[in-house]
Structure formats: structure tokens, C-alpha cells
């Protein structure tokens, strides 16, 4: 498998650490980037190449993950995006389906991260 790039968007440093650790444990040569909010993410969107996967938290200060996903899609039309949240309301999963983004339930575990990675295929 060739080296991939994953962008993690989460305001929780610990969540980012865990996701990153779980990815690198499986794929040590992958590149993992992190941002903590929508603003940081959007400035990155203009400067880097399209990653192979983006994981998004929903409940963040400022813009929420779902709105952010919609904006990211304007630049990167087909980038695989997966929403990671404990907020399992019907409205959230419905919006995910509308935006054609993946949905993985928190807490973050080895299982939930491998499920998130399946959205790359």
C-alpha cells in the first residue's frame, strides 16, 4: 500500500493524538496532519494537496464539522470525509448522507479508526 495522507480536524488535542497514534500504529509511513478548527482547516485547504482522507469532529468552537465538510467539498469535490462524533442524532446522520460523508461513532477506539479508514476506498 502506498503512503497516504490523512487530515485530522478536532479541537481536542487528546482525540487527535489518539487517532494519529492508532493510524501510525498500523501504517507507520503515512502522513498525518492536524488542525483544531474550521479556520485553520480552510487556510490549509488552499495550500496543500488533496489528502486521502479527512476526519472531522462535529462539536468544535466556531464552525461545526458538518458545515466545514460542505465548504471543503467546494475545493476538493471527491475527497473522502468522515465525521467522527458521539452525537448520534438522526439529523446528524441525515446531514452526513446528504453531504456524502462517512459517519463513525465516538469514542475513538482502534475499531472506530479502522472503520473511518474504510471510507478511503
Amino acid at each position, binding site marked *: 500500500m502506498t503512503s497516504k495522507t490523512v487530515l485530522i480536524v478536532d*479541537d*481536542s*488535542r*487528546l*482525540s487527535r*493524538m*489518539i487517532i494519529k*497514534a492508532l493510524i501510525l500504529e498500523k501504517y507507520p509511513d503515512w502522513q498525518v496532519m492536524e488542525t483544531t478548527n474550521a479556520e485553520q482547516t480552510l487556510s490549509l485547504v488552499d495550500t496543500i494537496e488533496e489528502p486521502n482522507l479527512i476526519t472531522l469532529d462535529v*462539536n*468544535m*468552537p466556531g464552525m461545526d464539522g458538518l458545515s466545514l465538510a460542505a465548504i471543503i467539498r467546494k475545493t476538493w469535490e471527491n475527497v473522502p470525509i468522515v465525521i467522527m*462524533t*458521539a*452525537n*448520534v*442524532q*438522526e*439529523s446528524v446522520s441525515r446531514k452526513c448522507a446528504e453531504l456524502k460523508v462517512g459517519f463513525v461513532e*465516538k*469514542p475513538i477506539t482502534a475499531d472506530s479508526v479502522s472503520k473511518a479508514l474504510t471510507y478511503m476506498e
Partner: protein
Amino acid sequence: MFVLNDLQQDALLEIFNIGVGKAAAALSKMTSEEVLLSVPTLEFLEWEEAKQHLPGNGKIICGISQRFDGPFNTEAILMFPEEKSLEIIRYILGLDSLLERLTEMEQEALCEIGNIVLNACMAPIADIFSAEFRATMPEYRSGTSEHVLSVDVAETNRVIMLMLVKLQMEKHEIEGYLAFLSVLPDIQRLTANVDRFISEFTK
């Protein structure tokens, strides 16, 4: 004053965030309405200070509280302004608003809603800590937020942990809060658990 390092604070918020997410989902399912969540705030305060941070502006609120004892002890409270509690419960029960106060049966129904939401919130937290909580039956209280959230007098001079999340139900313009209150010895047990949790992922 009691302080957590950044990572501890972050971990604690994230753990509660997961619980709150499940709680919102439970509330949303009961009301068939989208529940918006604020980013939770976490503060360590003296009770006197904490009172200034309580929502409600001295208005009458209704709260449903349950005490959870386990890896740490906490008082979990779901609260709504009184008139909004009437609206929620009568919406869920499909009743007309005839009385200006919650009847006994309605209070009980509100207790059940609080029970479902609070249990939903604490279950993933217990999972994360791989531990169990013993929980009390939900209790209905009404009064100012200071009264509803009142901690034991003997402990009022000690540091308390106050975690607040705002729940918003747009269709009904209802704003409620989820609050978690813990006193100092419990906070220390909580942080010990958080440390253990962090070390599992950072070793």
C-alpha cells in the same frame, strides 16, 4: 486554586463531550427534534464563585438530578427554565397547557426524560474508564439554579468542578443545560482516572 494541565483538561472535556453527545441523541429521539450542543465549558471554582457562573439569571428552573458514584462521584443535572419544562413535557405528552405549574405526573415524566438523558450520558463515560457507576434514582427539583444545583453545605467552601453544556432545541426555542458538579476529593479521583486513560494512548 485547582488546575489541570492542558492535556488533562482536554481529555476530561472530550470524555464528557462523548457522554453529552449520547445524551443529546437520547433527547432528540424523544422529542423528534434536532438538539444543538454548545462546546462544553469546564471550570474549577469555589462554590461562591461558581454561583455566578450558573445559567438562568435567578429565574426559576426545573432540574432533574442523579448522583453517580464510581471512578469519581458527580451530581449530574439536566435543567430547563420552568416555562420551557412545561412546553417540552406537554409537547412530548401531547397535552394542552392548562396549568402554569407542572403537575405531579408531569414532574415524574420529566424525571424519566432526565433519567434517560443522564444515563445515556454516563454510560459511555463508564465504558471509557472501564468502570462502573452506582446511580441514584432521578430527583426533581425546582427553584433558582443556585438552589437546584446546591451542593452539600459542608462542602460549599471546597473547590467544585462545574461542567456546563447548553442544549438547544430550535423548533421550540428551548434552551436547557446539562451540568456536572463534583467536589475536590472526587475531582482528584477523576483526574487520576483521566491520567490512566491518557497514559494508555500515549505510552
